[in-house]
């Protein structure tokens, strides 16, 4: 697992002005500590998928959500995935919040960048397996996006045995701990949206794609 330094800076609100030596050094140090101590883990499973109006059926599981239904429209298969970079980021944030708030903020940003990067890696793995079967990935869609209810976390956790397999747990409010964790649904479709990978939208020729990110 690697931290994308540019993303870290973006999360920190960096707009390209001067980056002094001291700040730069601190970011380097914190990033190295986070990369050293993180324990990325993931689990995913693929299911049959069927969308009828706003009802999405994934394996035995049914959820009602307009946005998810739109996202999975036409997909016969879907992957449910969960991933985390482990507890190190949370511990570092806690520790540095006491002695050095600037560092805590950098951990927060670097951790966000790290989990995104890691989920991208996992997604690449899924993409390869899918493409070998002539299937293509829709952008990943997580509980809490649009009207895809956060309560669905509970079901996803049960389906993937998240706490047992990769050590993520849910709070009463269905938030994940460690906090640098992601769950998502990824639709698999036979239609080739060539560059549907979230970061490549700008390169894609399909400019009228409804999943396009600006």
């Amino acid at each position, binding site marked *: 697992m690697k931290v994308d330094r540019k993303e870290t*800076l973006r999360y920190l609100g960096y707009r390209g002005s001067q980056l002094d030596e001291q700040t730069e050094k601190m970011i380097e140090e914190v990033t190295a500590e986070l990369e050293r101590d993180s324990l990325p883990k993931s689990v995913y*499973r*693929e299911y049959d998928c069927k969308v009828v109006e706003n009802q999405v059926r994934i394996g035995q*599981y049914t959820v009602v959500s307009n946005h998810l239904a739109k996202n999975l429209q036409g997909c016969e298969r879907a992957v449910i995935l969960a991933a985390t970079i*482990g507890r190190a980021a949370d511990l570092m944030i806690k520790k540095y919040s006491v002695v050095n708030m600037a560092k805590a903020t950098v951990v927060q940003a670097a951790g966000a960048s790290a989990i995104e990067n890691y989920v991208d890696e996992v997604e690449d793995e899924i993409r390869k397996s899918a493409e070998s079967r002539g299937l293509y990935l829709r952008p990943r869609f997580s509980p809490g996006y649009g009207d895809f209810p956060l309560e669905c976390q509970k079901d996803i956790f*049960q389906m993937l045995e998240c706490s047992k397999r990769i050590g993520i*747990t849910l709070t009463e*409010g269905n*938030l994940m701990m460690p906090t640098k964790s992601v769950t998502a649904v990824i639709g698999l479709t036979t239609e080739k949206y060539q560059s549907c990978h979230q970061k490549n939208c700008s390169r894609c020729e399909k400019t009228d794609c409804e999943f396009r990110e600006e």
Partner: protein
Amino acid sequence: MELKERLGKEILFFDGAMGTMLQARGLQTGEIPELWNMTHEEVILDVHKQYLEAGCDIVKANTFGINPFKMEGTGFTCEELTKKGIELVKRAIQETGKKAYTALDIGSLGKLLEPLGDLPFEEAYEAFKPVCIAGEQAGADLCLIETMNDTYEIKAAVLAAKENTNLPIVVTMVFDEGGKLLTGADMEAAVAMLEGLRVDAIGLNCGFGPDVMKEFLPKLREVCSLPIVVNPNAGLPVVVDGKTCFHVGPEEFASIMTEIADEGISVMGGCCGTTPAHIKALVEKCKGKKPLEITDKGRSVVSSYTHAVVLDSRPKIIGERINPTGKSRLKQALRENDLEYIYKEALAQQDMGAHILDVNVGLPEIDEVAMMKSVLTGLQGITDLPLQIDTSDMEAMEQGMRLYNGKPLINSVNGKQESMDAVFPLVAKYGGMVVCLTLDENGIPETAEGRIEIAKRIIAEAERYGIQKKDLLMDTLCMTISTGQENAKITLDALDYVRNTLGVHTTLGVSNVSFGLPQRELVNTAFYTIALSRGLSAGIINPNSEKMMAAYHSYCALNGSDTQCTDYINIYSQQADAPKKAADKKEVTLYDAVVRGLIDSAYQAAKKELETREPLAVIDEELIPALDKVGQGFEKKTVFLPQLLMSADAAKAGFDAIKEFLQAKGDASASKGTIVIATVKGDIHDIGKNIVKVLLENYGFNVIDLGKDVPPETVVEAVKENNVKLVGLSALMTTTVVNMETTIKMLKEEVPECKVMVGGAVLTQTYADMIGADFYSKDAMGSVRYANELFEA
């Protein structure tokens, strides 16, 4: 024969997977397997029978996932599901006519405990308790706590079993490829805690197949003095077509397990993916093998939730700074419930090289039990060092030991019968190494012989509780030489005898030796060095003292425990550069130091300013203008967040210098006003709130930080109690903005004059208006501006 008598004397066999078998019979992913105790009784019964026929000695009841959190809304109680689960095993045993033990199977709650998660330790305990009780009542023969990946949760489960049943306890855990639990503990740490809690067997299950698990066994055997259990998967889980599959077949499984048996394993069986065929093959190949004899590894060890600290030939350092004796600033922090100050002390000692931290929070005017609980919990959230629970209040000691995540050091017991009667039962129950003071009803003996006699008595009494010498840390009591020059010799002679003749580890509160003398550090350092050479295992010292640390590192280099002087060279080879750096720092003005975010320089510069200027002038003409400059830069986006916060931390160091100056003069520092801040209920992301806190404090506000996941009532209460006119609320998630609205509503109803400012990732001005906030702050600086306007008006 009782299971306990057989454990470790012959190889016993667990059964294999239940989940795998049920999936083959139609259990869907996501379906709760334990409900099948009620809905598919015959299937469960049949699985048990198949395993019994395969030849297992211990059958795991289908109770793994039963807990109040998972069973909520299923229509069944934990008790009825557990009882049914046990009954089904019993019935299977009876109907097959086989002899076997019934294991109450207890798995993880699926929740992370405080301080890293949101589940309080005692609630975890309460969740395990009914299952333990029901299991024993229904006739379980042992309690198997398995597939665990967090030591703290294991401790809650073990205590629930120990305090509510008489069942033998077996604990098996899931280590990852790096040999760690998901929550960070390595094997040594987990074993230290479990041996302290006196469970009956320890082992590994799930996660891997037998081949990988085999690699872990030498390490486990090296550190573990209990019978070892191994229940691997039938290989790594592989997902094919949405279904989890396992690829290690019965023959392969059994053949690797034969090699495992030769490693000296006492109990073997299977986890995910294993079937009756696996167990049958295993039993055929391994039945009759003798486990290696269980030997006591004699390790003197304490542990945190991540790692163990072993007392061996390399002395260890116990940091003494969290102890209010003689420290007025710490006393003040305790009285004001300023835990942050304590945490900083802890982290500073850790940075300087302490191995264990002493925690003493006893002051006559505070509730020591409550303080011990909150400080211990808080410390475990920010440092991974083992802690020494230092108190003479037995209730604080017990609560501390109960809440501690690991095997603690306990300070202390002494030779008085009353003391031993109170402390040893606690050590026997919760585990721990214990500091033993060589004094008794007649006081402190004035001879080494007298102290040695007491040491021997303590050792003998401890043994009656099954507490071995390896878990004692004898303190031969360091007295000041200013009242009797022979004091050092008495202490050292007794220490030498205890360590080198009785073979018990030793400790001393080193700095006591110099009370009443000038330049105490000189005497302390010399005495410390001598004590180390006479056999001091773990001195209680100030790790922030460079001289003491130099003595320590030099000693370790000299006695050969710092192999190839590696640490010594690492620490001291760069020291030549230090004076030059210090010279650089002096050049910086306070204003520059804050703007550039130089913490040490800001502190030094502020001290220097105070020699010639009034404190208020330093604040108004240096600190605030510097902060404003950075703040404006932030709003213009020429300065970004880490720089803003570095400046804030530097300014804080400057303010600290001023506070110290004022305190020395007896002046109380003036505050611009008090603000309550909180992250709303349900939300656990609080970094934004913490940033706001740092900035508000730097602009001279007194901030009451209620933390995260704060119920509306708590906010209202804090506002009323402190007569506060501004509250800051943060919420990161869309789902928790509703709780923000509720909090604002309640505030407006009960304290209408109080203003509320809000912020957070998902908030906008429109949202803020909608939920009735008085001010929406798009970033941390905005909250400072609003607070300034409000309090200056």
